[in-house]
C-alpha cells in the first residue's frame, strides 16, 4: 500500500480511484460471495477535529500487514470512510485490527461502546456486510458513489467559472474559511485583476459553416486567482463563502469594465454576475459607461441557485436589465439542474448547458430522461452548449437542438480565422 500524505482536506485524494477499484472488485466477486465479508468504517460521521491527518495514516497503517500478506483489501472512500473486503479465514485478524481503530478514534461520540460491534453487528461507526446476503446493498452504495464522480466539481463553486483549471488542481488544499476570505477581500482591493481575466467566444455553429462569434464571455479565472492568492485553499469546499467571493469579483470586474481599461470591450460581451450585483451602484456605473445602443449586445450570466435564492429580486433585476436592453443568460446548467430551469417561465433569453463527455449516455439513461426532455423542448437558438473541448461535443450538440457553442474546441477552430 502506498504511504500517502493526507493533508487536512475535504476529500481523500485516493478516494475517487479507490471507489472505482472497489466497484470493479465487487463486480468480479459477484458470483463468489460465500464466506466473503465487507465492513465500512464511517470516519466521515466523526468531527473533523477528532480524525486528524496522523490518525488517518495510523489507521491505514494498521491494515498494512493484512493487506500485504493476507489478501485483505483496503479502500478509501472520498468522504474518508474506508471499506475492507475479507473472507471468514482472516475475519479474526480484521476484528483485532478494528479494535485498534476504535481505540484510535475513541474520542468521538460516534465510536460509542457497543459490545457486539466487532461481532458483525453494525453500529454508528461501522457497517458490516455479509456478501452472500448483503452484496446488492453494498454494490449499489458504491455504484452510487462512483456515479457521483461524473459531476464536474462537487459543490457550487467550480460550476460557475468553468475555467477554473483541471479538477486535480482544484481538489487540493484546505477549505476556505471566513478569516481567509477577509484577507482575500483586502488583497483584492489592490490586486491587479487584469492578468487573471480570460475571454472565450460563444459562437453560432450550423452544419459545416465556420463558427460565427456571437459574443465573448469575459471572466476572472478562478483557478489562476486561487493559485496567486490562496494556493493551499480549496474554494469549492465552502460554496457559501465562495459565493461571497464572487460578489466581490463582480464588483471588481464591473469597475474594470467601467474604466474601459480594455478598449476592445465596448460591445458584444458577457459577464458573470450575482443578482444582488445587478442591483448595486457598481452596476449602475457600468451601465452608464456603455455607449447608447450597445446594451443589447451585452449578456448578463446568472446562476440558477442565485436566481431561486431570491426570486423576487431576480424578477426585479431581470425587468430592469431588460428595460435597459441587456440579455439574460442562465449559466452553468448541468443535466441535473436543467429539468428545473424553465427559461420561458424565468423570462431568460439564453441558457447555458455544460457539456460533459458522458452526457450522451446520461441522457439516454433513465436518470437523464428529464434532462433529455428539457433539451428537446428547449428553443434551439437560445441554448448554448458550453465547455465543448472536442469535436464530438459539437457534433452531438448539433444533433441535439444546439446551434450555439462555447469551449476550447471552438477557440481552436476560431484562432486561425482571427489572425
Amino acid at each position: 500500500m502506498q504511504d500517502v500524505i493526507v493533508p487536512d482536506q475535504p476529500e481523500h485524494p485516493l478516494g475517487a480511484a479507490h471507489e472505482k477499484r472497489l466497484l470493479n472488485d465487487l463486480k468480479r466477486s459477484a458470483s463468489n460471495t460465500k464466506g466473503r465479508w465487507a465492513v465500512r468504517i464511517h470516519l466521515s460521521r466523526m468531527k473533523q477535529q477528532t480524525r486528524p491527518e496522523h490518525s488517518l495514516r495510523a489507521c491505514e497503517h494498521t491494515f498494512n500487514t493484512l493487506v500485504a500478506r493476507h489478501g485483505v483489501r483496503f479502500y478509501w472512500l472520498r468522504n474518508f470512510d474506508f471499506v475492507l473486503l475479507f473472507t471468514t479465514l482472516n475475519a479474526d485478524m480484521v476484528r483485532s485490527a478494528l479494535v485498534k481503530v476504535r481505540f484510535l478514534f475513541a474520542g468521538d461520540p460516534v465510536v460509542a461502546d457497543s459490545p457486539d460491534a466487532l461481532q458483525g453487528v453494525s453500529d454508528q461507526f461501522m457497517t458490516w456486510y455479509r456478501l452472500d446476503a448483503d452484496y446488492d446493498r453494498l454494490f449499489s452504495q458504491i455504484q452510487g458513489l462512483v456515479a457521483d464522480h461524473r459531476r464536474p466539481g462537487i459543490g457550487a463553486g467550480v460550476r460557475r467559472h468553468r475555467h477554473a483549471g483541471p479538477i486535480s488542481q482544484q481538489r487540493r488544499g484546505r477549505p476556505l474559511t471566513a478569516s481567509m476570505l477577509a484577507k482575500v477581500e483586502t488583497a483584492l482591493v489592490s490586486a491587479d485583476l487584469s492578468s487573471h481575466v480570460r475571454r472565450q467566444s460563444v459562437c453560432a455553429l450550423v452544419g459545416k459553416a465556420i463558427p460565427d462569434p456571437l459574443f465573448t464571455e469575459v471572466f476572472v479565472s478562478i483557478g489562476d486567482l486561487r493559485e496567486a492568492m490562496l494556493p493551499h485553499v480549496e474554494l469549492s469546499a465552502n460554496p457559501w463563502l465562495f459565493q461571497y467571493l464572487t460578489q466581490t469579483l463582480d464588483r471588481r470586474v464591473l469597475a474594470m469594465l467601467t474604466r474601459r481599461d480594455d478598449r476592445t470591450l465596448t460591445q458584444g460581451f458577457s459577464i458573470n454576475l450575482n443578482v444582488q450585483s445587478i442591483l448595486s451602484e457598481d452596476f449602475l456605473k457600468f451601465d452608464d459607461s456603455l455607449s447608447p445602443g450597445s446594451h443589447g449586445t451585452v449578456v448578463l450570466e446568472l446562476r440558477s441557485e442565485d436566481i431561486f435564492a431570491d426570486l423576487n429580486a431576480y424578477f426585479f433585476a431581470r425587468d430592469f436589465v431588460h428595460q435597459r436592453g441587456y440579455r439574460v443568460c442562465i449559466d452553468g446548467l448541468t443535466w441535473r439542474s436543467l429539468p428545473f430551469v424553465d427559461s420561458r417561465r424565468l423570462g431568460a433569453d439564453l441558457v447555458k448547458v455544460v457539456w460533459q463527455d458522458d452526457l450522451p449516455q446520461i441522457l439516454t439513461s433513465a436518470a437523464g430522461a428529464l434532462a433529455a426532455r428539457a433539451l428537446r423542448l428547449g428553443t434551439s437558438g437560445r441554448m448554448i452548449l458550453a465547455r465543448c473541448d472536442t469535436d464530438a461535443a459539437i457534433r452531438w450538440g448539433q444533433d441535439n437542438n444546439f446551434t450555439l457553442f462555447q469551449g476550447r474546441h471552438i477557440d481552436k477552430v476560431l484562432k486561425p480565422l482571427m489572425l
Partner: protein
Amino acid sequence: MAIERDPSQTERQLLDTIERAGRSPAGRTAVHLHLSALLPGNRPPAHLRIAGRLFVPLETAHHVQIFTLSNGDIVVLGKDMPEDEVDRIVHRVRALFERDPLAFTDFSEQEADPFVSWYALEVDYDDLRATAVRLLQDAERRRDVQRLAEKPPRPMQPADLDILQAKLSELDVRPMLRRQPCIRFQMKEAQVAFEEVFISMADVRQALAVDYDIFADRWLFQDLSRMLDGRALAGLPETAAAGKPDRLSLNLNLESLESSEYDMVVRSLRPGQTLIVEVQVIDVFSNLPAFQRARDSLRDDGHAILIDGLHPAVLGALDLGLLDPDWVKIVWHPELAAPQHPRKSEEFADLVNDFGGERVVLSRCDNETAILWGMSKNITAFQGRFLDAILGTVTMSKCPRAAACTMKDCVARRAALGGRLRAECPNPPGLDAVTSFAAPRRRV
C-alpha cells in the same frame, strides 16, 4: 470629521426649485411617483435607486431635474418635457413594481392614480407647492426621529464572521432554542401538525454582543448557519420540550445531515416521533444530488424534507413536483391578498393543487387575512404569529393558573424550549397541553 448630510436636504431643494419655477410656470411640468406607498418589502433602497436611474437619460437630454426623496418618492421637474418619453419611463418604473398593489390598482376616471401624479405648474402650482411643503415637513420629522433612534447596524463582514464563529463554539444555545407550531386546519378541528425548532438569533446577538447585521449578506449568513446547525443539534436532545411533539422540524443545511450531532438527535427521538428537515432553496440548487439523496434517505427512515422560505412566485417559476419534497413552505406577502392582483388567484390555487395542497405550509401569517387567503387557495397548514396568538389564547383558556399571566407572556413561554422563559410559567405542563382546538369556520 465627516459631515452627515441632512436627509431632508433634497426635499428642501425640491421646494426651492418649485418656488423658483412658479415665477415662470409656462410649459413647466412636474411628475411625482409615490414609491413610498409601495409595500415595505417591495421598496428596498437598491430597487428605489434603480427606479430613479431610469429617468437619468431625461436629465441629460432635456435638462429635467430629478429628485430622489428621502422617503423613496421620485419627483421629476422640467420645462417643455417630452411627455411621451416621461410617460414611457413612468410605465417602465410601474412595470418594475408590477408585483405591488400600488402599481396595479385599478382606479376610476374620477380617482387619482395612486402611483403617479402629474402637475402642470400653470394651473397646479399651489397643489404642487403644498405637496412639496408636506414632503419637507415629513422628511424633517423623520430626520428628527432618526437622530434619536439607534443607527442601523452595519453589515457583517467576513472578519466579523470569523470572530463570531469562534465565540459561537463556546456558547450554550439551549436557552435560545425556540419553537413555533405549524397548524393544520381540518374540517372542524385545528391541530399542531409539527413544531419547528430554531435558535433565536436575537438571543444569539444579545449573548455575543453583536452590533452588526448578521443577515446583511445571504452567503455569509448561510455559512454562519452551518455552525448554528451543529450547535442547535447538539443542544436539542437535552432540551425538555423537544420530546413532546410527534413531529419536530429543524432548519438545517444539507451537509449537517451527515454530522454526528444529527445522528445523536435521531437517536434521541422517542418511538413514533419523526423529523421534518427544512432546507433552503439555495442549498437545494447548490447541490441537487445531495438534496435528492437526503430526501430519499429521510423518507426511508420515516422522516420528511421541506423546502423552506419560498416566495409565492416560485410555484409558477419552478416545477416543484420534480424536486418532490414532502412539504414546501411559502412565505406570506401582504400584496397577495390585494384585489386585482395580476397573478390571478385561480392560477395560484391551481398551482397549489398541482403540487398538493396538503404539502404546502403558508408561513409568517401575521393576521387573519393571510389565513383566509391561504384557505381560499386550498392551503390547510399555517404558521406565524397570528397562529401563535390563537394557540396562546386557547392555552390560557384551558389553564387553571392563567389569571396571573398575559397572553404575550404565555406565547413567549410556549415558544421557549427551556431556560428562564419557560421556567417563569406557573403551569409548565400547560404549555404543551394544547395540541388541537376548534377550527375557525372556512369562509369561501
